[in-house]
């Protein structure tokens, strides 16, 4: 805590005395002022709410779409070796193309907007969900499945009572990584093209040499990313609460 305060004081001192010129770094007061302006009149054509909403919407639409397709994909990888063999070369080739390299394609196909930005998020979010789903399904204990079958559960019950709960933590880890990747990819995509969103706000601040806005937008980006991660961890913890007792016993 002391060190954070020291950094903040040093930041205030260096910027207020203009040892670091204001064109290089905004002072804390300017950042606060930029925040006030953003919440009041907005910046670059939209209010801060509209920018934040645009980013969050693209982010969640992209990750949700990725999850809807990638989870069945991962299950397919785990259950059918043929399916996996057939798709592995394509999947592995595409996986190594950095998500940002898709930005020009996304813009070319859809023009800057929700669809193009969500597509970049989708591409960044897809592989971790597939890989983690695959891994958690294929590591299901076969003895556990057979035992539950033998103890009289119907196939449907085996899936809903045994397979889903045991695989869920792994899938949720994949979604968490996907959210992190997606947020980063989205910020890149918004920096490169578009006219709304928090990433765009950073560039708009740069273009108007309004460093307060730039830094405020960066703070928002960091905050929202961290906040979502915490919330998701809470949800994951709640969904897999049955594990708590087990872990305590080793």
């Amino acid at each position, binding site marked *: 805590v002391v060190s954070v305060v020291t950094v903040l004081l040093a930041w205030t001192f260096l910027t207020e005395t203009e040892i670091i010129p204001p064109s290089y770094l905004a002072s804390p007061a300017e950042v606060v002022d930029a925040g006030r302006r953003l919440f009041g009149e907005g910046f670059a054509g939209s209010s801060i709410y509209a920018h934040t909403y645009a980013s969050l919407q693209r982010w969640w639409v992209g990750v949700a779409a990725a999850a809807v397709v990638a989870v069945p994909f991962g299950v397919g990888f785990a259950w059918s070796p043929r399916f996996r063999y*057939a798709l592995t*070369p394509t999947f592995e080739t595409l996986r190594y193309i950095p998500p940002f390299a898709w930005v020009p394609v996304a813009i070319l196909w859809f023009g800057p907007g929700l669809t193009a930005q969500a597509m970049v998020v989708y591409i960044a979010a897809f592989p971790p969900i597939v890989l983690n789903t695959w891994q958690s399904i294929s590591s299901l204990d076969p003895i556990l499945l057979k035992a539950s079958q033998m103890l009289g559960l119907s196939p449907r019950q085996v899936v809903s009572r045994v397979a889903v709960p045991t695989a869920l933590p792994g899938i949720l880890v994949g979604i968490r990584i996907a959210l992190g990747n997606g947020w980063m990819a989205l910020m890149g995509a918004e920096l490169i093209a578009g006219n709304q969103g928090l990433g765009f706000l950073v*560039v708009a601040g740069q273009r108007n040499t309004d460093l307060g806005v730039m830094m405020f937008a960066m703070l928002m980006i960091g905050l929202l990313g961290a906040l979502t991660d915490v919330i998701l961890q809470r949800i994951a913890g709640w969904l897999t609460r049955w594990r708590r007792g087990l872990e305590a016993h080793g």
Partner: protein
Amino acid sequence: MWSSPLVLGVAATAAFIGIWQVVADLELVSPLLLPGPGEIWSRFVRMWTTPYQGNTLVGHTAASLRVAFTGWGVAAILGLPLGIWIGWSRTARDIVMPIFVMLRPIPPIAWIPFAVIWLGFGVTARSFVVFLSAFFPIVLNSVEAVVSIDKVQYHAAANLGATPRQTFRRIVLPTSLPILLTGGRIALGNAWMTLVAAEMLGATAGLGFTALNARRTLDSDIMFVAMGVLGVFGGLISLGSTWLERKATPWATRFEAGSGPVQ
């Protein structure tokens, strides 16, 4: 025959490329939006010799690799000592960690506009952004590498008369080296990914620049060539560094299938 990974993989991929080619030939999708694989391939071959925006494909690739490895190298040179220091000293941890926790959630990409303000549109600005993306995993893994050394073993070795050098080789290195290498590998992956975004914002050479510029001029085949090369090098970097890591530290227990998340 239809259960062999090789046969199935090759057949499915060939079918995929074939369908793509047919779609392109029949112009079901405008070639402006999605050129066929044949067209992309012939452009790829031509780009070896014909310069695009002042550089051949080799020149752009070299420019990208240079920036990625410069940023990563500087991150390793600064990050390793810092991480080891934080790992050794509680005071250092108390001073630096809060600042880290504060800065870490901000994606390195978001620093690009700042890099442009501070350093202009040049190799330095791009290398700086790449540096940021590689710096955090290297520092955090260096901290982890020091912290994970077994203190009891360490002191026992010293008490039993091991020289500092022996202690280092037998106790410190075996546990910490794998963690350090993992940090380096993750950092290199981040570096390559971040590089692309950095090259799209203020650059005059490089694969990311090529891809974005080709969209503006609607040379979509060039765009896909740049993406393909980015993917190939991304794969090479990832597989190569994983291989090196295994060769260098064969004793380390890796994540086996079914344990731990996949990035």
